[in-house]
């Protein structure tokens, strides 16, 4: 590799990639290296790594142009599975939930909602919306990071899956305050995306959840449909 950079510290070994901090051409940078998985057939593994690295870099660029708060890309090597990007200074919402006041948490979730709505307005789905992927900066901005599973949405469903994933995380990792967090998120989301579109997304979310396994409501739903036919 021919770039000038220096990895100083591994900060996170995620499920998909190793994330390290360092310096790149004089910038404080984050290095994201997708790792080969010993449990995947090598052909499949190479293809997944190449495809996801390219997609992530392209979408990060597009989103920057659209004014969504995501890290800037400094360097990409799809074959090695490496992306070097700007370092966002801050803490994840997941790790700061305990230390934020209710008001601060609400405002952070609302900001996250606005940023996701900006993405959705541009037809891009994040693909992995969790509170660990929302970085709250000292100035109160929220950046959406880890676009490893992001994609151009083919339909409303892809956008709704994002919201569904957030609900899933709130229900599992933040179950005691999930309703309030979701309400705050939604206020920011709605503000950017508008009432009508938000309603359409939420209706789709409901549909996705009803399609899941063992949903009590579904039985009722099916009966009602048959009745009206």
């Amino acid at each position, binding site marked *: 590799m021919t770039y000038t950079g220096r990895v100083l510290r591994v900060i996170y070994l995620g499920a998909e990639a190793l994330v390290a901090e360092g310096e790149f051409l004089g910038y404080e940078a984050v290095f994201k290296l997708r790792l080969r998985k010993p449990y995947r057939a090598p052909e499949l593994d190479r293809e997944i790594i190449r495809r996801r690295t390219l997609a992530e870099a392209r979408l990060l660029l597009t989103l920057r142009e659209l004014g969504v708060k995501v890290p800037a890309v400094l360097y990409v090597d799809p074959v090695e599975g490496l992306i070097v990007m700007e370092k966002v200074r801050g803490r994840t919402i997941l790790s700061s939930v305990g230390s934020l006041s209710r008001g601060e948490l609400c405002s952070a979730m609302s900001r996250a909602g606005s940023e996701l709505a900006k993405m959705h307005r541009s037809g891009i789905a994040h*693909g992995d919306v969790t509170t660990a992927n929302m970085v709250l900066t000292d100035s109160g901005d929220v950046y959406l990071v880890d676009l490893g599973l992001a994609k151009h949405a083919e339909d409303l469903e892809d956008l709704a899956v994002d919201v569904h994933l957030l609900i899933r995380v709130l229900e599992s990792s933040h179950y005691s305050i999930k309703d309030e967090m979701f309400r705050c998120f939604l206020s920011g989301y709605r503000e950017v995306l508008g009432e009508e579109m938000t309603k359409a997304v939420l209706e789709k979310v409901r549909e996705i959840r009803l399609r899941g396994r063992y949903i009590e409501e579904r039985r009722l739903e099916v009966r009602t449909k048959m009745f009206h036919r």
Partner: protein
Amino acid sequence: MLVLGIESTAHTFGVGIVSDEPRILADARYSYVPKVGGIHPREAADNFITNAPRVISDALRSAGVSVGSVDAVAVALGPGLGPCLRVGATVARALAAYYGKPLVPVNHAVAHIEIGKMLTGAGDPLVVYISGGNTVIAALYGGRYRVFGETLDIALGNFMDTLVRELGIAPPYVVEGVHVLDRCAEGGKYVEMPYVVKGQDTSYSGLLTAALRAYRSGARLEDVCFSAREVAYSSLVEVAERGLSQLGKEEVLLVGGVAASRYLVEKFEAMARYRGVRLYVTPPKYAVDNGVMIAWTGLLLYKHGVTVEPERAYVRQRWRLDSVDIHW
């Protein structure tokens, strides 16, 4: 303390008897194997009715006890197929009412997890529950098994069964303990298939369609089997790995019928080694549906005062794992 447990959620009518040492005193089963197609719920239920008395007597005989000497009767009230569930529920209500025993309602999914924990000694694992009807990544948090990921459409086992059936090589789906998909994948090469991971969730319906389409347009059978399996298993291991990473857990526990797949276990072993976590796999005999797991979970519930009046013991076909309070 002795508890008798009855399982009848899908293809197996099972009766288990356990004591709190813990010890398994009896494990009697009848399994309905369809001659063609998948499980026909009414046919399965009819066969359960015919075989139930024999299975119960077998269990009591091998444990050397009578119904009068058990402390409680436990039954899986859901989730599962309605007609099948009703057979187990009816039998359990009758036993409880006639012998004046407390009746304990057990969630089938919780039972798969609890028997896995008891047999493997896993402490606080990330649970991967994979069977014909379920594909769930869960962990115990705040008194419930919270669902961190699951299939957005069909279950892994359902995917495997439907694929081999549509390919014309099943039933039977499992031959000498090995799934037909694992058999036909031997010697296959990878051809491209849609690999779907949405956050912590998986999806197999698109993969099923793509695999069948590839076969119909001339791809070799072993390549289709190999690739479909590779993608299905890899995406599951990936979401499990994501769950581990998000939750910071150090143990993974495989439960449910598909946990018997040697090839899937190998993939999990590779992931566990690589991440430095411990892997626990429920022994195949108890990973599939059985009465012992219902009895064992019933015992845990009974010790914590959970019982139900027979006249209120309704079956719940869609009883979600994450709606059950875990008191232990």
